[in-house]
């Protein structure tokens, strides 16, 4: 701080501190505190806000446990609150998306880092970046066209004779959502993993080859451990974006797929109950924090590594 005063003088230092305070306090901390505070208040008509009925309680959070529905899994049927069910499925499918993204991105990341001719790498990266520049809503919309009942995918499959009747892709539970999320976010896995593998010394791989290691063992013992920070940051980003996505589940979801963000959206926009929406939003934030913490602990990486 002393150093900063000496270098930039009082006026500039003060300006800088004020700007940072504006960002962190006005735009981040206070809104989140407000969200937290509101989540404990009941939803009341405007005139009753601040009145005797406006007291703090956990009622908004307890709404998660309302409305039991019957579900069955592996032949066992059980009763479960509908929002808990949605919450669980959101986490499950977000993890599935993360795993599939990793499976798809890892070979290409390795290819980009170690196999491809370095001179054509910039061109390849540019090609891969194109879908990233086209906005998320259009990427989801593209799959909406492809998966349509009379769309090109069904037409293609019918033409090569893989199926006899067209399939309603967007009416098969979470299929559309998962397909859309993978397409939208796979690049967020690719680039961190690529960065990590790139820093691996190729000599290590060659040494292992010379010593007779089979290819899978090279990956398992050398490349994968080395790329752990990249995998961790890619996984965290993909999981968070998937679990927090509202666009893709709304466009590609079916009648039987409900994403937790859609539940929050309904509380906020349809029920106009901002307090319960706050409580649910806070639950989502909590889930994400827990997930990031676990991921950092399992992979033994720091927050600053993820941000790269």
């Amino acid at each position, binding site marked *: 701080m002393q150093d900063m005063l000496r270098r930039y003088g009082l006026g500039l230092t003060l300006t800088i501190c004020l700007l940072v305070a504006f960002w962190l306090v006005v735009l981040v901390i206070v809104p989140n505190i407000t969200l937290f505070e509101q989540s404990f208040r009941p939803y009341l008509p405007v005139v009753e806000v601040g009145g005797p009925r406006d007291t703090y309680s956990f009622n908004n959070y307890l709404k998660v446990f309302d409305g039991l529905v019957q579900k069955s899994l592996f032949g066992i049927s059980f009763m479960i609150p509908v929002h808990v069910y949605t919450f669980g499925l959101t986490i499950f499918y977000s993890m599935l998306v993360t795993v599939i993204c990793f499976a798809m991105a890892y070979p290409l990341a390795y290819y980009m880092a170690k196999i491809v001719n370095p001179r054509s790498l910039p061109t390849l990266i540019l090609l891969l970046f194109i879908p990233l520049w086209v*906005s998320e809503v259009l990427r989801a919309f593209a799959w909406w066209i492809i998966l349509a009942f009379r769309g090109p995918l069904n037409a293609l499959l019918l033409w090569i004779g893989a199926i006899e009747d067209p399939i309603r892709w967007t009416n098969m539970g979470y299929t559309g959502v998962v397909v859309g999320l993978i397409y939208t976010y796979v690049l967020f896995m690719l680039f961190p993993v690529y960065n990590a593998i790139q820093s691996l010394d190729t000599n290590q791989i060659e040494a292992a080859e010379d010593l007779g290691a089979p290819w899978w063992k090279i990956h398992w013992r050398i490349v994968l451990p080395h790329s752990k920070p990249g995998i961790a940051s890619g996984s965290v980003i993909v999981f968070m974006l998937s679990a927090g996505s509202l666009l893709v589940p709304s466009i590609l979801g079916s009648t039987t797929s409900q994403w937790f963000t859609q539940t929050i959206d309904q509380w906020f926009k349809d029920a106009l109950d901002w307090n319960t929406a706050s409580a649910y939003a*806070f639950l989502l934030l909590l889930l994400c924090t827990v997930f990031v913490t676990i991921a950092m602990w399992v992979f033994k990486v720091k927050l600053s590594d*993820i941000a790269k």
Partner: protein
Amino acid sequence: MHKFRQNLAHLYMLLFVFYLLAPLVVMSGAAFNDSKLPSIVPWKGWTTMWFSEMISDQRMMLAFGNTLWVAVAVAVISIIVGTASAILINSVSGRARTVLYGMMISTILIPGIVIGISTMIMWTKLGGALFGPGGKPWPFIPGLHLSVLGQVSYIAAMVMLLVLARLQSFDSGLEEAALDLGASHAQVMRRILLPHLYPAIGAGGAVAFFQSIENFNVTQFTRGGADTLTVYVFSKVRAGITPTINALAFLLIVVTLLLAVLYEVNRRRRARIEAAREAEARRAEEALLI
């Protein structure tokens, strides 16, 4: 065997690129199909009618304008705040640095929907507390200005990271020298530090601009009645869609491609110049040795 695996890898790369680009081709193709629903099958003949319909779509043009000014505002504020934060982080150390840095980074990880709702609630509640439930004045009502603030709250962190990376290569001895030679603090900032940061600030501005255009979650919860392009496309997809969206998508993709090609040509030219220079240097060295 090695050769075979190599070919397999090339094949996988081609498949992956196809997987990424094919949906965009399908979407663009549907813009030219003379069919009421956006699709490429069945093909009903070429038409450019969806482009003229897109131009006459007032709401879409309005949304387009909104998107642009929101993106510019987000980029400008993010650059100012992000650069200031990077300078601050670079000047403090120890615990304060860890805490500040952690807080800044964690904004990227907050789900957009949480940012949207919290920003909306804070500003409207604050307005309610200050002016009562009746007529709240401008900054306290829902609208795109709240979307700008919400988006800045995490996009500033991205700018901060880019600028901070650039600051690592800055020699603070230059600042010392300028101060010793009698430069004022403002001069040091304007003539020495900022010029060094310009590449990172430019990149940060571009990132912020595109992130803002992409943004849906924050905008959806704070926009009030106004549209941005993303929100407009979203509402169209849900409530009866026409291929005007495809026409728009096609234009966006074409612009992206043009920019990409331009960048690539420029990069190749620079690489060639660089290679020529290196060869020149090598020749000169050899000549010296002889």
